[in-house]
């Protein structure tokens, strides 16, 4: 992402510009955010399919100016080393918990709810689902957005007297900064009417802090293999014509 402090080739004639400052983080495109968070989530032990969901969630949030990359980093750090068995959502009538009272992973929960589609709440008579405790709950919003669009529903996420609404257009409004600051909540997901959120602004890059970048990169590196001379041979094109 940034130029190494010790330039290995100081006489490189093509390096006509000053090196970028390392400490400042970087503006990442949504594509970069999605890919980096996917790799980091995989590096932290998520299955490839769930890691794709993590990448999706981070980019969805960044597109709406919410720090999805930081939330992903917090989540995978918190869940690092915990087995799927521990964070796997268990859905019973009107309630989702993790096994043995552990904390739910918002990516796993969001994915499970999306997979259940129209049936995500499980009970048409009582359109309400209690979930929790769930860590870094802002990561749930991209999934609620997909459910809202898929089922043409308004959904609200309520906790400690605060609320975020998700409209059938898949957009969100409400106390998003408060949700972003919560490391863990018990919440209720309700189906019903609410204010209609405006469509998200046009896409743009999102500034990712150096701490988040380096943290995510550290996890992403866990998916890579140190190169051997054997593997390097012939991998690229060394053309000398």
């Amino acid at each position: 992402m940034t130029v190494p402090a010790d330039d290995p080739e100081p006489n490189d004639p093509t390096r006509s510009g000053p090196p970028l400052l390392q400490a400042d983080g970087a503006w990442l495109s949504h594509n970069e955010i999605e890919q980096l968070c996917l790799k980091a989530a995989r590096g932290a032990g998520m299955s490839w399919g769930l890691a794709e969901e993590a990448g999706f969630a981070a980019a969805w949030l960044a597109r709406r100016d919410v720090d999805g990359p930081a939330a992903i980093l917090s989540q995978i750090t918190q869940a690092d080393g915990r087995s799927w068995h521990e964070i796997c959502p268990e859905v019973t009538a009107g309630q989702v918990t993790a096994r043995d009272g552990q904390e739910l992973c918002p990516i796993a929960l969001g994915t499970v709810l999306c997979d259940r589609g129209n049936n995500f709440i499980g009970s048409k008579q009582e359109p309400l689902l209690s979930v929790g405790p769930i860590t870094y709950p802002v990561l749930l919003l991209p999934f609620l957005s997909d459910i809202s669009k898929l089922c043409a529903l308004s959904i609200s996420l309520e906790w400690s007297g605060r609320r975020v609404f998700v409209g059938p257009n898949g957009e969100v409004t409400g106390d998003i900064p408060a949700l972003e600051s919560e490391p863990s909540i018990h919440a209720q997901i309700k189906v019903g009417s609410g204010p209609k959120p405006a469509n998200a602004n046009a896409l743009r890059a999102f500034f990712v802090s150096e701490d988040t970048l380096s943290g995510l990169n550290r996890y992403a590196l866990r998916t890579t293999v140190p190169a051997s001379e054997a593997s390097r041979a012939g991998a690229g094109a060394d053309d000398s014509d």
Partner: protein
Amino acid sequence: MDCVSLNPFPEAAAFRRPPSEVMRLARMGCAHPTRLSFLRTLLRRVTDQGWVFDRPVWHVDNSGVGRAVYRAIGPERTYSLVAFAHDLPDEMRSDRVIATAWDATFAMFDGEPTEADLDRLQANVPLQEAGRISQKELSLSRANRSVRLFEHVVDRLAAGEQPNVTEVAAVGYLMRTTAVYGSGKFGAADLATVMDRPELNVPFQVEMLSVWLTRQFTVDIAEHLARVRGGARAARLDPAIKKSLGVGNSTGLGMAPFLVRHPILLNNWIMAREEALARVRAQSDADPNTVSEFRAALSDAQENARKWSSTHPSQVSKLAALRKDLDSISGYLALGSMSESDHPWDTLWRWGETQLSLEGQEALLALMLEPHGNLVDGLAECMVANERAAFRLDGSMTVGALCDRLEQAYDWALPIDFDLPDNAARFWYVSEEKLEPRIGFRFEEDGADLEQPLCIARLAKDLHVALQDWSRDAPIASFLVAHPEHRFIVRRVQATERHPYAEVRDNLIAADMLPIDLMRCKLAFFGASRFDPRSDKWVRISLFQDLPYPSDLSPEAWA
């Protein structure tokens, strides 16, 4: 766009080749560029819409160092390729993705850059991966000179002479790109932000425009250096020689996984091409003008096959077969069958299936599309993919239905015995060194525990085995709660329902798998020609060879 609903040729469906035939590596590795290839679509658009090209900035000094701007001015928007020319010592020239210096570096600017934009880009673009570009840019790329030809051309032009045509033909380009990054890489704008523009609603249009303007730069910089060296005596490059020069490209393993990672995009590319072939085959007759255009295309293809050289054993035999096959097609035409038979294009195609090599058959496909622009060009609009729209999987699908889908769409994968070492000999991974994709030998190298999910056949088989323990009535949502490790492949399997050409139907971790087959298929869709594999892991190609230059469309700007 849902191109199925717009299909004006329902009768063509009966002529479409099945995925079991099309999606095999051996055939994909024989793909030829067609008129639906992305660079051809670009050239059609800029020609039909009267785009204007010029070079408003050319600040290059006598040592060939400096910057230039190439503008492509369309009816609604302007794009500018910003080029930085460097003076690179020979010993630093490397095409590997791990290189840190190049002869020239480029960024495609969305609009017309100010001086401040150029200064910002000058501080970043020459660094390539180590720099950052912004939302105002759409691509980042670099190119190296062909040491052999570039120097020869400059030398001859400086002396007021033309380069030796044999030397020109032997290399075919002055410079080769070693990477062209688009779509949100290194801070550039996401493709999604510009896909609503008609000119970018075909895959890789920014990249193709970048390479085409780069081709102009390669000639401009050679002529510039010849003028510096030869002064008034220096010659301009002869137009015929100039036309025969493309932009070279060396493509390594990094590109191979792309088609596997983008199943819906792959489907849409192949579907468009297959629908095009089917439409041509569905024609009840062949009018004489179309047949004579076909003959002209055949003649060009024969000429191209004569000039196309490779020393790679597999390509050498493919080329020999291709030359023979093109002669056979010529012989077939001489029999006059095109004017006699019912559905003559289909008869020709079916003749080809029995008489021609795979290389010859895929060349015939390209030739058959060539005179049928009115019939097939609109399909170019169907080749983009909204991958996000297909991302959410259907958890209500039953285990039984998923099993049935697997058995139908992955029938090629399920019988493979992965306990046999040859069937699982390779593994795909990402190198820590440069984060580039590589392929290793599972039983000889470390790292297989970090395998990338490109072993689709085995993933499908593992899923099929796991599903057997579940009730056929259970929803797949329940299965995935218990088995999150299968989520990745379930998403793909479900996608095949509406995307029949989504999967490469071969074992990508088999001992005898050739990564160059994947690359050739992708590069043919770009419009690449003269494929010259240099190993089973990388291939040299040419782009835009024998096609016009921006200066041909706007000669006044290069007078």
